């Protein structure tokens, strides 16, 4: 009883009273279901991992789940530096470099930009702020296909089509609704009196942003960074259209390596390349822990 009572004090903990006795058929079923779900979610990654560590001979034996008998890292090395896309056999490292070159500036610009927008919209409420915000939110829902073709024409006119700057710009444009939304909702949740106090204290638009708002924005800043890094890193479509031949991101190269091979496929190399591509977002996800969860739910639930 005491444990229940104390558990109830803890914010956002499961509701203790809804819980049946600790060992009951329902409880056992619950654990079995949880365990089965866990297997379902982990299985593909396990399969990818063991496949990437096996030589092809062993893969041909057809046991997808087994740990390799002859553990080899050769597929990883090949995937990184010598896997072929069509006639070029440079591995996926070029795509990695491209993805870094695209992601880093695009994330920084879109997050900063979103922070300023969210701040301006939520605290200063410039004329038309609701319309602007509503438009951006709506824009976030609309599939890229609607915008991409005219956008290619615009970029081509400015000579930016297929350039790194153009691709970064495109990511900023399409990242803006999300970052603006995150920051706007975050700032809107702050007491408006804080903003009034800063105005009485004589802080103008930029000073208030730098001295009052930004220092408080750490949580949402991390969320925005995580979401943007994973979002831009995982992009396929925009890289396909706007990256041209020289700035194909990793996802694109991965798909080319795996799906456009002639002759026999090297599944171990394919899987190694797949894992390498997923590594950055996975790392970001595991490092950020709860923040990503909070971010996606905040973005979704409040949006």
């Amino acid at each position: 009883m005491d444990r229940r009572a104390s558990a109830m004090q803890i914010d956002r903990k499961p509701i203790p009273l809804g819980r049946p006795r600790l060992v009951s058929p329902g409880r056992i079923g619950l654990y079995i279901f949880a365990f089965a779900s866990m297997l379902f979610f982990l299985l593909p990654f396990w399969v990818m991992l063991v496949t990437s560590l096996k030589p092809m001979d062993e893969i041909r034996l057809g046991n997808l789940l087994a740990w390799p008998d002859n553990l080899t890292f050769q597929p990883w090395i090949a995937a990184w530096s010598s896997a072929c896309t069509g006639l070029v056999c440079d591995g996926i490292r070029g795509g990695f470099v491209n993805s870094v070159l695209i992601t880093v500036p695009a994330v920084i610009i879109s997050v900063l930009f979103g922070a300023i927008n969210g701040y301006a919209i939520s605290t200063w409420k410039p004329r038309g702020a609701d319309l602007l915000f509503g438009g951006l939110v709506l824009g976030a829902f609309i599939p890229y296909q609607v915008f991409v073709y005219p956008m290619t024409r615009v970029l081509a006119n400015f000579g930016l089509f297929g350039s790194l700057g153009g691709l970064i710009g495109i990511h900023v444009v399409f990242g803006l609704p999300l970052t603006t939304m995150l920051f706007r909702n975050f700032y809107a949740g702050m007491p408006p009196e804080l903003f009034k106090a800063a105005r009485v204290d004589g802080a103008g638009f930029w000073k208030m942003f730098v001295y009052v708002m930004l220092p408080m924005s750490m949580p949402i800043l991390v969320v925005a960074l995580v979401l943007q890094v994973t979002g831009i890193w995982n992009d396929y479509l925009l890289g396909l259209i706007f990256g041209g031949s020289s700035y194909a991101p990793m996802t694109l190269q991965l798909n080319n390596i795996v799906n456009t091979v002639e002759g026999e496929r090297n599944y171990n190399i394919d899987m190694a390349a797949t894992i390498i591509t997923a590594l950055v977002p996975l790392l970001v996800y595991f490092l950020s822990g709860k923040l990503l969860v909070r971010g996606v739910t905040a973005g979704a639930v409040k949006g």
Partner: protein
Amino acid sequence: MIEATPSVPLGARSSVSVRDLTIAYGDLEILKEMNLDVRTGEFLVLLGPSGCGKSTLLNAIAGLNDIRSGQICIGDVDVTYAEPSKRGIGMVFQSYALYPRMTVEQNMSFGLRMTSTPKAEIGARVAEAARILQLEPLLKRRPGELSGGQRQRVAIGRALVKKAGVFLFDEPLSNLDAKLRSELRVELKRLHQDLDSTMIYVTHDQIEAMTLGDRVAVMKDGIIQQLGTPHEIYHRPANRFIASFIGTPGMNFIDGRVEIGPDGACFRSAAMDVPLAGYEPVGPLRQGAAVLGIRPEHLQPMSEDRDGPAMSVTLVEAMGPETIVHGRIGENALALRVPGEFEGGRGDILHLSLATTKINLFDTASGLRL
């Protein structure tokens, strides 16, 4: 074309005057042609139920609201369209509004740093404010590490260091628990006596209004219903709304008529008849429908049964030092404030005596004081 916006010199105590101020959002008028003069050094309380426009008025004085028409002057400077920071004001908020990532010291000095005050000056002023508010041991702490009362003292300190000519308080004690609230109330009163600054204080708590205010402006629906000393507000309310809003429980009302007879005016009703010889009317009394108002403490049960109006008791609320007795005379529900020793209960019949010099008369239709 950029006009230099006027600014109020700091350090001088100022008066505040509001002329024909109208604030509206769309068609919704929050304040209607409001006029208010706050004297230099005065503690003025804006009191009213939520949504009456009192906070809007305070925000307008601070420059935090868009105004539709009218004029606001602080001292003799027209600040109607001046930036909040140029008005020589300090403001204290209900939620404290301390900057969470700054220490107490940084919180208090922020306004001075924003106006590029010399470092030495900032240090001296923060030290002084900290001394007055006994915040010296807390200067390096963050707001999150302070109690509610301490936070509110820091918020007051933030206004103090600016040597504001006018202090604006927006329900500063409402977030505190009852005990702290009364402590800080006393502290605020003392601060006002020491500084002798002009203070405008918004609250919905009538005890704060009564104890703190030199004058109280009672607001409702965007209009100041009455502006007067706490004594005037309590004892000579300008209308029925104020009479019922002020005091717990509010004033008792009895419907009846004023009749002018050969031996002077008299209030007649089914419940009781009251001679009006001791009443000071606003204008000459006329015959007609009227409402008699009497505070619960001015109605008392008589010790021995006499021919006073008889009230049957419906409910007794013992509160310790005093007891509130609810009852009815015919259609009229009444409340009495009697000493705590009162013994009686539901169904008892009390004969009442009424302090005839303490009565109030209101017009039945308009609710205005007669």
